[in-house]
């Protein structure tokens, strides 16, 4: 069920990706990366994966673009001519591709409802979600309950990234020898661009509002802690871009961000510890309340909050670390 629109978007994505690799100007490459992510998000939406699409848009097109730009402000915008010898690389890549062709091109990936991937576990997920959780977004059910342990791991991965960034370029890290940069887009803000500030100021409240909607409506429609956290962070980062990093830091100080990043993970893990103390397995929400369905829902809501808090805290911490680097 590959629609022509999907084909079109995928071809476009491929071309954009080639552009990313070829562009000598890194700034252009970053912009192309953002477009690439948006195209991929659109493809995911067409492939019935709205949750993934939302995340890809917020994280891929939004957050990672900001991160790349901030990093670039601290490094360089032009790629020097000449890479490493392309021939061996091409050989490796071609061999890899050939191997995949050998394995995968006997039958199409898409659409077969009888494929084992769609018959083995998927029906049970729907059935159990209906019986024991009564929430419409099965993606959320799988994410937060069936594979809640993975999601805890995922939150920890995000936290690890924050720890790493703070460790490497945080306030306590060895300071670089580089003189403060004049054009640090991420740090200095765009205070002199009045129209942008006005549009931004109108947009930001809506983004934040949307973030909270996504957070609390995750069980019913696409969304959840990750998307919400990313959106919240995106909103505040946008504010920082317009008004300067210090202004953004004034809204939520780094101290609080750190507490959020760690606290969210602890809330998530804490739920697991509580279920364990209440006689269940780790993260077995159904023991939380007398009524198993409400208990599942309660568990999911609480851990989603944990996820959202950690993700927003982490992304903002990372943003601040990059933006503050090089300006003391």
């Amino acid at each position, binding site marked *: 069920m590959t629609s022509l629109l999907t084909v079109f978007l995928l071809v476009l994505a491929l071309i954009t990706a080639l552009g990313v690799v070829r562009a000598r100007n890194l700034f252009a490459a970053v912009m192309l990366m953002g477009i*690439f992510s948006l195209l991929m998000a659109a493809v995911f939406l067409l492939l019935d994966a709205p949750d993934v699409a939302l995340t890809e848009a917020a994280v891929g097109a939004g957050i990672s673009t900001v991160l790349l730009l901030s990093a670039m402000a601290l490094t360089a915008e032009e790629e020097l001519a000449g890479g490493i010898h*392309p021939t061996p690389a091409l050989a490796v890549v071609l061999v890899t591709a050939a191997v995949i062709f050998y394995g995968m091109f006997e039958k199409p*990936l898409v659409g077969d409802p009888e494929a084992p991937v769609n018959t083995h576990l998927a029906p049970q997920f729907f059935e159990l979600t209906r019986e024991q959780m009564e929430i419409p977004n099965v993606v959320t059910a799988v994410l937060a309950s069936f*594979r809640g342990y993975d999601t805890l791991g995922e939150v920890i991965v995000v936290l690890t990234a924050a720890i790493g960034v703070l460790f490497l370029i945080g306030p306590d890290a060895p300071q670089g020898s580089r003189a403060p940069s004049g054009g640090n887009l991420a740090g200095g803000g765009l205070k002199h661009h009045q129209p942008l500030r006005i549009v931004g100021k109108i947009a930001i409240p809506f983004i934040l509002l949307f973030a909270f909607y996504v957070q609390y409506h995750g069980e019913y429609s696409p969304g959840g802690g990750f998307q919400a956290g990313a959106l919240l962070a995106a909103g505040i980062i946008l504010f920082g871009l317009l008004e300067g990093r210090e202004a953004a830091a004034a809204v939520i100080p780094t101290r609080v961000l750190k507490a959020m990043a760690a606290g969210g993970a602890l809330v998530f893990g804490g739920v697991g510890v509580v279920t364990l103390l209440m006689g269940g397995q780790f993260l077995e929400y159904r023991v939380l309340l007398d009524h198993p369905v409400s208990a599942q829902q309660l568990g999911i809501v609480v851990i989603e909050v944990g996820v959202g808090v950690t993700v927003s805290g982490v992304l903002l911490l990372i943003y601040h670390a990059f933006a503050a680097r090089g300006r003391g």
Partner: protein
Amino acid sequence: MLALDLFNSWIFVLLLMVGFYAVIARDNLVKKLMGLSIFQSAVFLLFITMGTVTGGTAPIVLGDDWGAVFSNPLPQVLILTAIVVGISTLALGLAIVVRIKESYGRISDIDAPERDRRL
């Protein structure tokens, strides 16, 4: 229309090649990280594609209609996780690149022989 049925597989392989090529052949560290992102996106496409069902909808039950045909939610969950892992790796990688720039003054050709001995 076998060609079109296999279309997503084609794009998966090609994106994988593009990304992987950038990782290996590009000397600039930021470019390597971008290549890594494209490489990972290809894998996202692989997973999401395998979970779609002809005539199905997103795995969100509307109006209590549990009988409808849905796409498989499991690959989507996996990819949500993978996307987050990807951005975490990118952030960490960029932080390292910033430090490399600060201590070496450049972000490509970092394998060049150095007189680092008595740093």
